[in-house]
């Protein structure tokens, strides 16, 4: 009866027998990616809606516009046409006549496309001869879709969440129930206790990563551009980073409410700025150096680098440095200030 093995068994059993752990680790990210994958799937662009105001030669004008597959024109009274523009149901209003007028909302990106297409269609109908003939080839490349961006994002978020709650919450719960105190009164080696958390966390991470890679491939055709072993090792390091942070958070908290608050404080801001759902490049330039120093940013950049761009493990030096620093320093502090009772 090896004590480390028994501690590991205890961790594994308490995870395995806790249905909510399985739900948050496996089912929840799967459901999220299905929901977001459906909502943000890449679609064929729809024809641009144009409202032609009633007037001279309105039907003929509409017919000329409709000859372009990229346009869809409808004839309506002027007032209705303007109403459609206001509501975003039409990208442009065309008032026909000898001197046709275009009404466009300058803040709508569709408006610009509509203006170019309408201009082009009317010019061609009037007999313009194009000076340059362009040949167009259409390409849709896996790796550039939203779901490709999202899968590593959700995995990184999952590693952070299960690290924080799986390790931090469990420790505080054991302290509240005096189990930590009871264990401390035995000859148990403290290193065995902490090691059991690290090992069980890594084991669950391994399953988590393989599950993500598999369902992403089967359901969404997300490819693994880089090396799978590198991806797994990187994810393991990321997960240990969050475990180290979680142990620090849990080192003194006397009840699970406090621990929950602290863990929300750590995870929520990173979920927003580190780029789980959208790229962190949307934040202003001056914030970028700070964002790059966050552990979740480092984890996500690395996972995306390997999965989407085929980056090698060693090309991710700066990210690895950030991750290891966030794992090792808090863990060292936690060992100093950890309370067993």
């Amino acid at each position: 009866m090896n004590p480390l093995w028994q501690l590991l068994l205890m961790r594994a059993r308490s995870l395995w027998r806790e249905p909510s752990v399985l739900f948050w680790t496996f089912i929840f990210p799967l459901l999220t990616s299905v929901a977001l994958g459906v909502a943000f799937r890449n679609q064929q662009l729809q024809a641009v809606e144009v409202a032609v105001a009633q007037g001279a030669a309105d039907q003929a004008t509409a017919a000329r516009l409709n000859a372009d597959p990229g346009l869809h024109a409808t004839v309506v009274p002027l007032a209705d046409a303007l109403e459609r523009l206001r509501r975003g149901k039409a990208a442009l209003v065309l008032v026909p006549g000898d001197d046709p007028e275009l009404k466009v909302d300058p803040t709508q990106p569709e408006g610009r496309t509509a203006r170019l297409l309408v201009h082009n269609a009317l010019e061609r109908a009037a007999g313009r001869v194009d000076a340059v003939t362009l040949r167009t080839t259409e390409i849709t490349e896996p790796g550039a879709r939203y779901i490709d961006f999202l899968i590593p994002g959700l995995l990184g978020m999952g590693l952070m969440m299960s690290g924080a709650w799986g390790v931090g919450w469990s420790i505080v719960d054991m302290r509240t129930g005096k189990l930590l105190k009871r264990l401390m009164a035995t000859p148990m080696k403290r290193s065995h206790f902490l090691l059991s958390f690290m090992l069980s966390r890594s084991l669950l991470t391994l399953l988590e990563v393989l599950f993500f890679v598999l369902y992403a491939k089967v359901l969404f055709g997300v490819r693994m551009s880089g090396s799978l072993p590198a991806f797994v090792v990187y994810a393991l390091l990321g997960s240990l980073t969050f475990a180290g942070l979680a142990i620090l958070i849990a080192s003194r908290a006397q009840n699970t409410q406090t621990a929950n608050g602290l863990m929300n404080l750590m995870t929520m801001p990173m979920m927003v700025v580190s780029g789980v759902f959208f790229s962190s490049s949307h934040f202003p330039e001056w914030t970028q150096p700070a964002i790059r120093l966050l552990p979740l940013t480092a984890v996500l950049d690395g996972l995306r680098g390997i999965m989407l761009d085929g980056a090698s493990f060693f090309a991710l030096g700066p990210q690895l440095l950030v991750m290891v620093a966030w794992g090792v320093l808090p863990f060292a502090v936690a060992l100093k200030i950890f309370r067993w009772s």
Partner: protein
Amino acid sequence: MTAISVQNLVKKFEDLVAVNGITFDIAEGSCVGLLGPNGAGKTTTVEILEGIQAPTSGEVRVLGRAWATDAGAIRERIGLALQQTQFYERLTVRETVELFRSFYARGLSVDEAIARVQLQEKSKAYVMKLSGGQKQRLAVAVALVADPELLFLDEPTTGLDPQSRRSLWDVIDALRGKGRTVLLTTHYMEEAAQLCDRIIIVDRGRIVADGSVQELIRSIGGEQVIEIATSPTLGDEQLKAQVPGLARVTRRGEVAALTVQELHVAVPAVVAAVQAAGATLMQLSTRQSTLDDVFLALTGRSLREDEA
């Protein structure tokens, strides 16, 4: 051989003195109870002996060793149950005992430890499915798994219903007489009287009495108590003048409790005193002195006061 030796033990927290200079020795093989109301400093004392808390000052030796130099060796040889430990809910009884067994070099088999507390039927049940009494028995099984020379039980039956309490007493009783030393804390005088051959009464961080149940009761001057209610009430002086062997009078509301040596002498004298004073006897009953009477005599307060 002394199993535990404590000299001038003091433990101060920021704003209170929990243990205020306690000295006692416990001989190997005895079962000793630390009895006192909540907040008397029992748990703090025991946790210092268990190596969980460090004393502010004073000398502690457990099984002849000091915590500062021999922590590992002491931990191998002691067993303990804290006041209500919450074990992992989704581990079975057997898995929990097995986990704790793995920390010790020597000890009982897992089955033997479970059998000692009569939890065999529940050995495959999850901890979350156990009743309060069964959880406490599991805590005792975990305390026994190293087959310790010295066993600490901190309020083992607090919060249990009378039946579970009695069944746990049977378990603890069975542990005695195997040469093991047991130190238990309790604020139930029945528990101390039932299980311990020596009782140390503590109050406000100090020892107020120390001895066997008989010794403690003798120390307050009598083993019998007569409780009377009369109308009008008789004064203490009146009673003391007329009742031979009356050691003390304590009052709770209308009822006066008279501690006496011999009932067959005292009762007729009490009845005579009531008649002589022209008063009416409303109530008369007798009982044995208890540890509560001892505590009341020594501190002026009842052990039961804080009991809900």
